């Protein structure tokens, strides 16, 4: 089932390629998990109450403008 069982030999190419690939995947995944976790925390904390239509968030205005 795994591709590595059919006449497969590890060489430096694999090390570099997959090393970089997984590094990128891990960075993306970690950042995503962080964002999700923080959002959940924010959602259930008072800071981000549902009724924020009238709330003023202490956020720098310019910071969000770019997104």
């Amino acid at each position, binding site marked *: 089932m795994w591709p590595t069982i059919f006449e497969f030999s590890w060489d430096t190419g694999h090390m570099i390629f997959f090393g970089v690939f997984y590094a*990128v995947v891990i960075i993306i995944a970690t950042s995503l998990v962080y964002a999700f976790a923080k959002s*959940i925390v924010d959602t259930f904390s008072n800071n981000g109450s549902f009724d924020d239509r009238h709330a003023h968030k202490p956020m720098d205005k310019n910071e969000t*403008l770019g997104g």
Partner: protein
Amino acid sequence: MSSQTDMPTLQRCSAPKFLLWLSFWVLLLLWGAYGAFLCLYKGLNQTGMNNYFVFGVWITVDLAIIALGAGAFFSGFLFYVLRFNFLKELIGAAVVVGFICYSGAIGMLTIDIGQPLRGYFSFWHANVHSMLTEVIFCITLYLFVLTIEFVPLITENRRIREMPFLRHLGENLHGIMVVFALVGTFLSFFHQGSLGGMFGTLFARPFSYRTGVAIWPWTFFLFILSAIAAGPALTTLVVWATQKITRRRLVNRPTLSRLAKLSAILLVIYLVLKAADTIYWANFTAPEMGFRFTDFYKSPYGMWLLFGEFYLFGLVPAIILLIPRARDNDFWLVIGCLFTCMGIVLNRFSFTIQTLAVPVMPFEKFVVYSPTWQEWSIVAAVISYGVILFSLAYRYLHLFPREAELNG
């Protein structure tokens, strides 16, 4: 518009008018969907490709839109990492354009391979020595990154902001956007380069084979450079076109000029290196393989391609955009950016089509390729997909942060 209260309601055209605009593009999209269905159901015999032209208009367009989509990663890099703050006005639009380009390219690639259901084999049985593997891995990952960069834009929508989780998600993602910008830059750097390397390593195709920096193909770096030169040009064009169509001011005029200037400077650097590459290739690489320079340019893929790529769509727009008075004039700005983009398309065209047209076998002749309507329909569908997505994004999302202020 950090919170709901100070987010102004933007003026948009009436729904019927918008639907009319969309319907045209949807029709085009449906035509493309029919073409795609034919190609998937009946096979690639529906295309104009053959055993000589194994890559056709799809790969040309793929390479071209990926190069043009480089605006997203490059402006992201400049804005988030190098802190070029003037880009704030259109970074959102650049991300959407990039997303469109990459998703469109991947969609087109899926139809282009003979066995789309086996597409995942290139991940599963990855051959790490192949440039194409690198391209496939990086493009897929980068599309993922672009999607993440797109999310904060979507969550700014007024309705979506009402859902607290999504709103927080958008804000948190935005907060760490510099990470994604860096990852995106890294990925883009490699796949833009690998797309060039894909052809540069074909030592059996003397037209595109390049040696150069050590053993690495030159084209690797040339493709990166040309992509980051063309990306901002397309962003400028798209913003300008949106302003014209919506008849609203979306960004400060100097911002467009600055972007165009950036594009022109990069284009000049690219052209110098490309000229050096071409001269070296024509005088050393090609003769070593038994080819004279003129052997590569025969009707209909004649010298005009090289001329067009270098002068008409290279040097000319670079000079136009380098003159401050010209780039401040809308007409010359558009001509300059359009020609820059066309130059890149032409470059990608010659790397796919002409590479394959040049006979390698001594007893073969120059062959000519002409796409069928099915191929064109899918190209049209990708463009209309882009227009539709961008229109929707413009209408429902807050793409241009200064719009309210400028039209106030």
